């Protein structure tokens, strides 16, 4: 199962230092975005997807599990947050909390089911579960079916920050993203992350050392789902709507694509991949019909020639861990 990320290097102190430097550069670049003339909503959307891709990557890159249903967390949290804000009038922070908690609960249930199989079966099961959820959301009244939940009030975060102001919203989303990113980074480099890596590397050996590997995989699944849900909750404030597209399986496919393009099992790959794919969707939208074809071509090219992804190739070239 470890072949997907076989050439990862062991995390040395140097690697940690490299990663911290890149993180600071990344954060600095993101902080100055509102002054660069780059359209902030584009960056906000990309940030949400970047967080989603990072959460996905936690599972595949460090747990060896390829989920083909991560859209279900994004969408579920989105719907819950949207509903909480619009119908119950909850404050933004409570809305985010509610959505994220919902995704966590979903992670517990779906994880319990899907963790029973591995490899391709795991992928197919997560895909099927997300499709099941898609149909549920299509029929449940509170999601308003195809129309989605629209016109969601952005409100004041902690009663202070007006999220209707793009710059304020941008920094809130940015802080959310960086926070989520650090949580993932910490998870990877935690005692738990060590065990996870060990399981990915050699599961029978980990079992023989007394680890109940299913429990670790389940926790990784739940964490990944929760963070994906957090991304979904943030996204509600950016898009101001929650719709079926966020739970559709094509969205799950896009997340896989983002991570693959950036580099499976790399720390920064998913972020880069998300920006590349979102930029492509926005700025190549003129190719119109060809967007899906281009995505397909990227998939095929990545798998055949470019398996390490952008960041993975760079890291490999410099023999660094990124």
């Amino acid at each position: 199962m470890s072949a997907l990320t076989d050439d990862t290097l062991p995390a040395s102190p140097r690697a940690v230092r490299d990663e911290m430097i890149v993180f600071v550069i990344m954060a600095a670049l993101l902080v100055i975005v509102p002054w660069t003339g780059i359209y902030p909503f584009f960056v906000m959307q990309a940030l949400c997807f970047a967080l989603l891709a990072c959460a996905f990557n936690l599972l595949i890159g460090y747990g060896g599990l390829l989920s083909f249903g991560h859209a279900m967390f994004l969408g579920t949290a989105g719907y819950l947050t949207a509903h909480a804000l619009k119908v119950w009038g909850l404050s933004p922070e409570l809305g985010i909390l509610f959505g994220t908690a919902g995704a966590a609960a979903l992670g517990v249930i779906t994880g319990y089911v899907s963790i029973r199989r591995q490899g391709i079966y795991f992928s197919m099961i997560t895909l099927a579960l997300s499709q099941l959820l898609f149909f549920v959301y299509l029929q449940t009244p509170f999601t308003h079916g195809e129309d989605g939940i629209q016109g969601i009030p952005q409100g004041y975060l902690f009663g202070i920050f007006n999220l209707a102001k793009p710059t304020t919203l941008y920094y809130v989303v940015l802080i959310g993203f960086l926070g989520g990113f650090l949580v993932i980074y910490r998870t990877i480099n935690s005692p738990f992350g060590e065990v996870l890596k060990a399981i990915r590397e050699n599961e029978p050996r980990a079992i023989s050392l007394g680890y109940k590997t299913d429990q670790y995989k389940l926790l990784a699944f739940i964490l990944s789902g929760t963070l994906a849900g957090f991304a979904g909750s943030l996204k509600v404030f950016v898009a101001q709507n929650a719709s079926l597209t966020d739970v559709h399986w094509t969205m799950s496919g896009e997340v896989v694509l983002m991570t693959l393009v950036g580099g499976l099992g790399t720390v920064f790959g998913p972020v880069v991949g998300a920006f590349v794919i979102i930029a492509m969707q926005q700025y190549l939208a003129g190719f119109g019909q060809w967007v899906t074809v281009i995505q397909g071509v990227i998939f095929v090219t990545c798998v055949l020639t470019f398996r390490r992804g952008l960041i993975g190739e760079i890291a490999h070239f410099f023999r660094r861990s990124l």
Partner: protein
Amino acid sequence: MQALYAQLLVGLINGSFYALLSLGLAVIFGMLNIINFAHGALYMMGAFCAYFLLNLTGLGYWPALIIAPIVVGIFGMILERTMLQWLAGLDHLYGLLLTFGIALIVQGVFQNYFGSSGLPYAIPDELKGGMNLGFMFLPIYRGWVVVFSLVVCLATWYLIEKTRLGAYLRAATENPTLVRAFGINVPRMITLTYGLGVGLAALAGVLSAPINQVRPLMGADLIIVVFAVVVIGGMGSIMGSIITGFALGVIEGLTKYFYPEASNTVVFVLMVLVLLVKPTGLTGRAA
């Protein structure tokens, strides 16, 4: 009660498609260890192939039943030769990702050229009309689909379980290296097997063309249901995937009768239940 019989029979029709598709997936999985995500797209190509044969060459339904699977099968073999074979020795998940990409490309290209609402394809004259079975009105074409796909499934089963070629195939599934060391060109067999599995999908496509609009996305959602069927049945045995396919079609049909709201989700719910009770699937070998 009459309606119930009718639903049972109707369920068998969907079951036919599930069976043909999951059978193809199982055959491919056995030899290539790849879950062919492009299966839905190739199913769609089969239907389009029938449409082109009719509109470009004037060849009707019956020739299409033979030609379309061959054409799409050859396309599949080209895919295998040019792309899939390079994945040998890599993690199985790469196969899933690659075929997912292929599915996106194929569906996207067809959508560009043929729009999304689809193209018409008529039921062949010989199979028009219906029969009153006393308890239901059975369109002859549907009866034909059930019978024909059952025959194809059983023929495939016979080919794999009872013939010499099938013996090569089963042996190569177990231990390709050794089979090759006996002098059998296993890579070529793998290519042919992929062609066969893909051909089965295309055949299902031709069968469905007169019932469903010939649309670029006709296979996209169907394939996910078939995945669930595969998870439920496991991919251990050929017969297992045939039986599970038909059985789930029937169960879905019954759900449409008793609780139509759930008919979309019943297969997935069943999948969850089966996983909780028997994680390897009903007939599956351990992964």
